[in-house]
């Protein structure tokens, strides 16, 4: 990879992403290129596609929920071109690894709402929760159970009583009880996987500083 190109890339990314040092951004870029598999093509047109990304989410960050992993991909992919380019990659990881409470709040909300209208609707919630009960009883009972669970969740989080959860609702609910941050399913990685990833990714920096 061309060093000058790399440096310019690092510069431009570090302007918008504050939570990583330049050396760390460099490491992340290298990893990105390893993952994409093609190291010599112009960077702007290359990206991670959905499947590759999902594999990464699963193997590195331990996520298992298909629906949500999809949504995470969309949350990373800000320009909606079905590829995650390097900037989106670094930006997304900054939320995963170093995100402030506000950033994570926004991220989760983005993951959870499907329609473009900025609300989490009842149907969406049902979709996300439909596998959350273990199949102990015949299908009908479980469906009822899930519907009730959706009701419970809405009752807890819908402050303006409009039948759907806006960002304001979500923010208020999570601020009151932090456990509700990933209320509709795990979309952020566990602390341990983050630590492991960082150790792996930034080991270069650590060793080079000696």
């Amino acid at each position, binding site marked *: 990879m061309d060093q000058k190109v790399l440096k310019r890339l690092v510069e431009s990314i570090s302007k918008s992403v504050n939570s990583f040092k330049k050396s760390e951004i460099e490491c992340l870029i290298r990893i990105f290129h390893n993952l994409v598999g093609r190291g010599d093509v112009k960077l702007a047109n290359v990206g991670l596609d959905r499947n590759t990304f999902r594999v990464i989410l699963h193997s590195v960050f331990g996520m298992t929920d298909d629906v949500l992993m999809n949504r995470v991909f969309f949350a990373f992919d800000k320009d909606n071109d079905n590829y995650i380019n390097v900037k989106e990659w670094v930006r997304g990881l900054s939320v995963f*690894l*170093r995100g402030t*409470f506000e950033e*994570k709040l926004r991220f989760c909300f983005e993951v959870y709402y499907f329609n473009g209208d900025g609300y989490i609707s009842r149907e969406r919630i049902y979709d*996300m*929760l439909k*596998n*959350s*009960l*273990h199949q*102990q009883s015949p299908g009908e009972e479980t469906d009822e*159970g899930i519907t*009730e*669970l959706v009701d*419970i*969740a809405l*009752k*807890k989080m819908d402050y303006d009583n409009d039948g759907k959860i806006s960002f304001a609702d979500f923010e208020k609910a999570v601020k009151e*009880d*932090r*456990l*509700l*941050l*990933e*209320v*509709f*399913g*795990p979309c952020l990685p566990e*602390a341990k996987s*983050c*630590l492991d990833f*960082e150790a792996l990714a930034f080991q270069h920096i650590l060793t080079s500083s000696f």
Partner: protein
Amino acid sequence: MSKQEVKFSEQLQKDQPNKAPKEEVAVTHKTSITSRKSAQENRINLGRSQLTKRLEPSLNWRTSVSSKESRNTLRDTQVEKHGGKLEKSRSSLSSGRAQLIRKSVEKIEEIISDSSSESEEDEEQPDHRQEANADLPSEYWQIQKLVKYLKGGNQTATVIALCSMKDFNLAQETCQLAIRDVGGLEVLINLLETDEVKCKIGSLKILKEISHNPQIRRNIVDLGGLPVMVNILDSPHKSLKCLAAETIANVAKFKRARRVVRRHGGITKLVALLDCGKHSAEPAQSSLYETRDVEVARCGALALWSCSKSYANKESIRKAGGIPLLARLLKTSHEDMLIPVVGTLQECASEENYRAAIKAERIIENLVKNLNSENEQLQEHCAMAIYQCAEDEDTRDLVRLHGGLKPLASLLTNTDNKERLAAVTGAVWKCSISKENVTKFREYKAIETLVGLLTDQPEEVLVNVVGALGECCQEHENRIIIRKCGGIQPLVNLLVGINQALLVNVTKAVGACAVEPESMMIIDRLDGVRLLWSLLKNPHPDVKASAAWALCPCIQNAKDAGEMVRSFVGGLELVVNLLKSENKEVLASVCAVITNIAKDQENLAVITDHGVVPLLSKLANTNNDKLRRHLAETISRCCMWGRNRVAFGEHKAVAPLVRYLKSNDTNVHRATAQALYQLSEDADNCITMHENGAVKLLLDMVGSPDEELQEAAAGCISNIRRLALAIEKARYS
């Protein structure tokens, strides 16, 4: 102190307008139950009338609740809900009373747990099951549904259910029992054993709230919840540690729970939480659930406070190095932190091992500093800690040196908060054992304040106030002050109480005052001597002994003492019969009284008729120096009537007396020599003494610096010698 606490709580319950008839307050477990029940009845009365006025759907099923604590929480929440609307003044009054009652009830529970009896466990109210009928409130069904999600859901569903469950009013017993009755406790505890941090946090938040209910606490322990929580203390997540510690603090409020915590190594882990100086390796990514180290230490202190009520735990805390850590935490200025830390120290300070460590760690300095805090609870606990520690002389000096006496004296004037007042008066009492402290208290006019507290105060305060006055009375100047501010009358009035700890202190104080002739006149006028005399009939030996000791200066300083003593019908016989007691302290004190009585010839004749000589002789075989001394003194007094000298010899009192000379105590020597001198006026006694080797022992004492001893020894020897010479003369003539 535990005796006093029980009295205090009983007194509070008695203070209620609709009180149970006064019962003989014996310090037995049974009495505590009875008074608990009577308190319960009172509360039921108040509770029902409040229930009828509530506007919510009827909760008739609740009347089957038998636990008193549930009534407390129940009534409190009702009062909170409706206080503003319906009966404002009434509810504020009853909630105030409820506070005091609940505290006293909790204190009983704590005291009982503190004592070594296991019977507290038997007292468990039969587990009340809610009746499954349509009268169950809607919360019950909602909670049941939520618990189903806990059982059958994955982590996501579980978290939603847990967060939703927290919205219920978990302080209300309906909700608490609902959770338990649908099997929620098992599920919550199971969640604690998973690896899912969010579930653990959510579950602990709920357990923390519902474990305020004593029944639930027991259920949690029965289900094995405590070891799980103790294990969570090892977690790297600080918020988990905090929640676990706080929940343990709530659960460990009874003896069995505390034992379980200790058995699973919980004490060591909790002590480790106090160490917030070290910063454990924190993840670069700050988790959203992180809390500060200080908060962890605070929660650890809370848990230790609950656990420290049992003796074995106090020891464990000390061995785990808890004291230096607690001392370090004392230096903060957060009241939230200080209260549990001082609370723990105060619990532990009742043990001697602790006091040495407390002195070493400069804890007294901080306790004194915090006496000046604005927080009343903190002041109370600091005063309690000082009370416990001031058994030790060095500590008493430290309190003075760090300027602790002044705030204590000024807190005496603040009588609103009775618990704090009790703690402060206790601290003043124990500090007064040192004379320099008493001088300081006098400067701060504390003595006058104390006299003012002799009326209209609950018994626990009185015990300490009188104790303090008793210590002050050891000095002449203070006795005068007490007399001048009219302290004698209220003291004498207290002689008619039932509280044994109080009586012991009152008799001591009255006795100390009686040394002043002017005070003695007042005591006599108020019939104080008769009251003291009747206390000789009190069942408790400590009271008997203390009353007897007090009677000595009374008789010494009263005008017409002999006449006065004779005027008590059956009084002399009573005193003589006390010589049959088995308690050494009682015996010593009664001997001292008899010594004083016997100064009057007529009375001496009367007690001789009552058989004092054989009774005294029977006591002669003792190794107790205190008893020996007073016994010898009284024997020498009693010799001065009729043929008592001879009678003592006939009852074989002489030989044991000679053995007293081998003791190490000079007081015993003096008294014995005097007794032997008196007895040696009789020839047979001389022979006995000679046979028992008295002469050699007495010869050693002739050279003693103590003049009275010298004289008596010499006199005795000369009598023996004279007899020997007379026998020789008779032989040769």
